[in-house]
């Protein structure tokens, strides 16, 4: 559809100022961080001269506008700079770590959807019932727990006390080497390589952190499903469908659910980008080599390039995701256009 293509292009064009703004803000924010990376990285026993050398080597002795121009120029060439704390190019770091975060977040959302959507539907079909209240209390309890707390408790119980979970050492146990990189998602790469053992091992590592995150995301998804289903079930066309004698199951699953899908998908998009940024804490607990833990470490040591790179990648992801959702909208509900907002 040429119309759809044009609106998509328009959407991308609208995102450009947003991305530029994010680049500027992240630059300013990192420069506002306290501390002097030159001092930090000059190491112990460094004197003034060596700190000054490091400062000029890092380009930090220039004025801010100059630094920004250099940064922007590098960005245009696709160079995100070097991370000081890992000593690697930021782009390389992010490329290696992003799949780890995406895999974890994606799986957690999948898990959450698998539980939350049926719960939401169940609650919506029997509003006010015991099941409704139970669902509500359960998912609300999940979202009320700080993720780092849940994570540590899960590790303590399932690894330390019961010994059923593998050691919380990141994406794979020592004995395994990561599968040959195709997508960076270990589950997919291991499957492509046909290596069942590695697949199992990496799946096992994923369970606890994914459950931790899923617990946290149950609530918004279940809540939105319930709300959307209630709205759909109350709509005129459902009344018509019921009145015309369709089976209740058909009404609920075919008619109401399809119509409730739209807000649920929007919520999913929001939750995904939110969780990707918020799983910082879970990554820290599980030694998960994702971009969240990377950003935290970088921020604490004022590692400018790494923080900026992280923010930029997250912003691009966010924009891409929104675009994808918008496009999905038109598939789910052709009546939705792009005019207006």
């Amino acid at each position, binding site marked *: 559809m040429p119309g759809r293509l044009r609106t998509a292009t328009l959407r991308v064009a609208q995102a450009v*100022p947003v991305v530029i703004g*994010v680049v500027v803000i992240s630059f300013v924010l990192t420069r506002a961080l306290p501390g002097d990376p030159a001092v930090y990285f000059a190491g112990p026993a460094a004197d003034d001269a060596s700190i000054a050398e490091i400062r000029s080597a890092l380009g930090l002795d220039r004025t801010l506008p100059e630094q920004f121009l250099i940064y922007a120029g590098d960005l245009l060439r696709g160079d995100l700079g070097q991370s000081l704390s890992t000593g690697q190019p930021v782009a390389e770091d992010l490329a290696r770590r992003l799949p780890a975060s995406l895999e974890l977040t994606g799986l957690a959302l999948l898990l959450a959807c698998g539980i939350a959507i049926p719960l939401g539907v169940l609650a919506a079909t029997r509003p006010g019932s015991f099941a409704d209240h139970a669902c509500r209390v359960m998912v609300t309890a999940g979202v009320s727990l700080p993720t780092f707390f849940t994570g540590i408790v899960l590790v303590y119980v399932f690894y330390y006390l019961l010994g059923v979970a593998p050691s919380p050492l990141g994406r794979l146990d020592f004995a395994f080497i990561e599968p040959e990189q195709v997508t960076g998602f270990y589950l997919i790469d291991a499957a492509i390589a046909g290596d069942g053992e590695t697949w199992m091992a990496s799946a096992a590592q994923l369970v606890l952190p994914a459950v931790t995150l899923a617990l946290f995301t149950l609530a918004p998804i279940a809540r939105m499903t319930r*709300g959307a289903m209630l709205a759909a079930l109350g709509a005129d066309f459902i009344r018509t469908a019921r009145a015309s004698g369709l089976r209740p199951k058909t009404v609920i699953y075919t008619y109401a659910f399809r119509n409730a899908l739209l807000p649920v998908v929007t919520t999913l998009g929001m939750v995904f980008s939110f969780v990707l940024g918020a799983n910082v804490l879970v990554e820290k607990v599980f030694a998960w080599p994702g971009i969240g833990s990377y950003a935290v470490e970088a921020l604490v040591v004022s590692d400018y390039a790494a*923080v900026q790179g992280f923010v930029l990648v997250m912003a691009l992801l966010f924009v891409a995701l929104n675009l994808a959702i918008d496009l999905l909208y038109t598939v789910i509900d052709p009546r939705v256009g792009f005019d207006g907002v």
Partner: protein
Amino acid sequence: MSEPVATPASANAVQVDDTWLHHVSHVLRSNPVTLLAFVLFAGIVVIALFGPWIAPFDPMESNAARALEPPSLRHLFGTDNLGRDVFSRVIVATRLDLTISVAAVALSFVVGSILGSLAGYYGGWLDAALNRVLDMVMAFPLFVLAMGIVAALGNTVENIVYATAIINVPFYARLVRAEVNIRRDAGFVRAARLSGASDTAVLSLHIFPNALPPLMVQVSLNLGWAILNAAGLSFIGLGVRPPTPEWGIMVAEGANFIVSGEWWLAIFPGLSLMLAVFTFNLLGDGLRDIVDPRTRT
């Protein structure tokens, strides 16, 4: 966007109040969970107000000889690594945690409402500019943005409040903008304008009140989220400064003691944190039921 289905609340206050109260009592009676939420909320407020008098010990006083004692009759929640009474600290922390979240949410509520109202009412370039700015903030990974702000400004209670407020502003601004936008040409608005009301008056007296119900829901959900956000900042080490008791810091520090068997350090503040967030979330759900009768059958 289609016209709103529900009829906008009018200024006809007396009648509305009556049916509204009736509706509230109906919802509370038919929904025990919401009732529970209101009871819990009242309890939390009481503890926040009278915490320092309820606490059996000075929450700051250390006692190296009684460090890391498990829960007992003397110390209901045990003692921490400095021998401070965890129960007293949990109780006293209630006020600070509540203050942080209420202040942050209030701030984002006010700022978001003003921005959203203006954009929604006047539209045009103002609307477009605000939208882009909000997009920009939303495109930031929010928790990392909050971390950055606190790290840059220093970890004081005020800065935690500001950081939490900033990352919440877009939600309010968006919501208010949408609510205002769909009503700016509604009949009752035109009538008010024709009767000579100024833009400010129309906006603040006629249009904005209609956005309040969904806003209240957002507020209550956000209160919980703000507490979690502050706790997360503490976990990274960017929270309230010691020795001030705060749930997030207590959980974060206590978390390191779980493996060595001193579970009470993290569990009790963790449960309090959870209970508070839980209450706010249930409250939000309950409020939604009250303000949006359509979702009830």
